[in-house]
């Protein structure tokens, strides 16, 4: 068939796209400058106050570097201590978050797709979700040994809820016509799950995972503060007890930077995975 088509895809006009990009760049620059100004203000204020509990960034950063980032180039400049502190922390963080993600998505799919099950467990879910995870640490301490198991369990219990509830919501709000299309064209079972239900729920699942990642970092630190003896949280506690205030602040700053970094990486992955979602919405 020859197509003398007069239809044109709805592309944003170049002028508008250009302006959007310019605005994006400007706000990026503004963000960086705000950060720089804050650090300068921090430096000035802490120097003026001159309190040993509030060292200036110019004292914190060298401590940070000496502790963790002055190793050999072959080890990416990481020191022995860096490996000893970061290793357990990251392992707990990603193990806990990963397990919570798997449990949350799998459980959410089951509960969301089965009306009976959903009806049955929903009140329990909302109760469990309302329990502040750190209060479970004493219980988990009694149940599991101090250490990795307890820490991972705390993280899993604390961060599984956003993923679980968002997945339930996501798999329930699949467009009816998309489900009917699947029925008409014989797309059933696992194929339907993989190609229709999960992608449709993906924006909500990702939102849940993102919230969970933030919580996971917090819970990682909290679980390490409870006498774990290793990890970044334990380092902060030990530095404070040893009165090494710049080293303590170094740990705090590191956690802040890590939080931002994780969020950034996650946002990039999410943007790639959900490109269809943003674009489909923009063109509507």
């Amino acid at each position, binding site marked *: *068939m*020859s*197509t*003398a*088509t*007069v*239809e*044109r*895809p*709805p592309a944003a006009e170049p002028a508008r796209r250009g302006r959007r990009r310019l605005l994006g760049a400007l706000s990026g620059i503004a963000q960086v400058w705000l950060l720089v100004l804050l650090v300068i203000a921090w430096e000035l204020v802490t120097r003026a106050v001159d309190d040993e509990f509030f060292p200036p960034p110019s004292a914190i950063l060298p401590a940070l570097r000496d502790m963790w980032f002055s190793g050999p180039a072959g080890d990416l400049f990481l020191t022995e201590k860096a490996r000893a502190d970061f290793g357990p922390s990251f392992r707990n963080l990603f193990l806990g978050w990963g397990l919570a993600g798997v449990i949350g998505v799998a459980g959410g799919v089951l509960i969301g797709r089965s009306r009976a099950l959903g009806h049955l467990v929903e009140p329990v879910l909302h109760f469990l979700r309302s329990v502040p995870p750190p209060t479970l640490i004493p219980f988990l301490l009694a149940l599991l040994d101090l250490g990795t198991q307890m820490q991972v369990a705390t993280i899993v219990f604390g961060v599984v809820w956003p993923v679980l509830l968002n997945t339930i919501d996501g798999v329930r709000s699949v*467009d009816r*016509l*998309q489900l*009917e*299309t699947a*029925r*008409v*064209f*014989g*797309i059933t079972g696992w*194929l339907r799950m993989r*190609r*229709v239900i999960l*992608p*449709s729920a*993906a924006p909500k699942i990702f939102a849940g995972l993102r919230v969970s990642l933030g919580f996971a970092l917090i819970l990682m630190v909290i679980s390490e503060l409870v006498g774990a003896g290793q990890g970044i949280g334990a380092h902060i506690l030990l530095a404070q007890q040893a009165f090494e205030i710049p080293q303590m602040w170094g740990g705090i700053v590191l956690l802040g930077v890590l939080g931002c970094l994780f969020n950034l990486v996650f946002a990039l992955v999410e943007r790639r995975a959900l490109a*269809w*979602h943003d*674009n*489909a919405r923009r*063109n509507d």
Partner: protein
Amino acid sequence: MSENMLEIDGLTHSYGDHTVLEKMSLRVPRGELVSIVGPSGCGKSTLLRCIAGLVRPTGGRVVLDGTAIDGVPDELAVVFQDYSRSLLPWLTVRDNVALPLRRRGGSRAERRAAAEEALTSVGLDGAGRKYPWQLSGGMQQRVSIARALAYRPSLLLMDEPFGSVDAQTREDLEDLVLRVHRDEGMTILLVTHDIDESVYVGDRVVVLGRDPGGVRAELPVHLPAPRDQTTTRAHPDFVSLRTEVSTLVRGAAAPTKTVVHE
């Protein structure tokens, strides 16, 4: 097996207390192309949804190939009226067309080739790697037609399938449907609001009425084959038929009940 592909008997459907279709009956012989016209809101989409097994009618039955349908029949494809919502935005155009072919078996490469072939037949060669939201409404509509054609159903339901395409493409697609119908012997029900189109493509035109919805008239179309956009539309029989259908549709738009009461 009955020679009728589709037998609809006393089909009644209500949404709540709003009765859309009432005791409608229709027979469709195997291999026929039936055009369905009627005023908007008379239940055309509801009828197709009942046949597709997506809606369980409140009364009556739909018999397909000799068995009353219960759930979605296997050998059936639908081009939904709301085509853009029925495409999956996270899949490329080609994968949207290829996904239903999974149950037919065959390798991934074969399915992709079949999808590309169907896309070419609707004039979308080269659009396979795009996403539905990158296409205009008319192009999305053609993707949804390609998906149904690639599926090779024995019964094809099309709900106002050419509503968003430009005039030239529309004529091409009408001829494509005629060709598929002729070459593959597919039974086709095509809902349209374009009266000329209903006569041009149909072996028979069924006029539905409103309040209550049901068949008002059935007109066989005897036009010389093969049909051709210029000569067929100029044929005297075509002209008189389209006038007749037009009058019937206008009459069907007026609710019969009201007329009786007056």
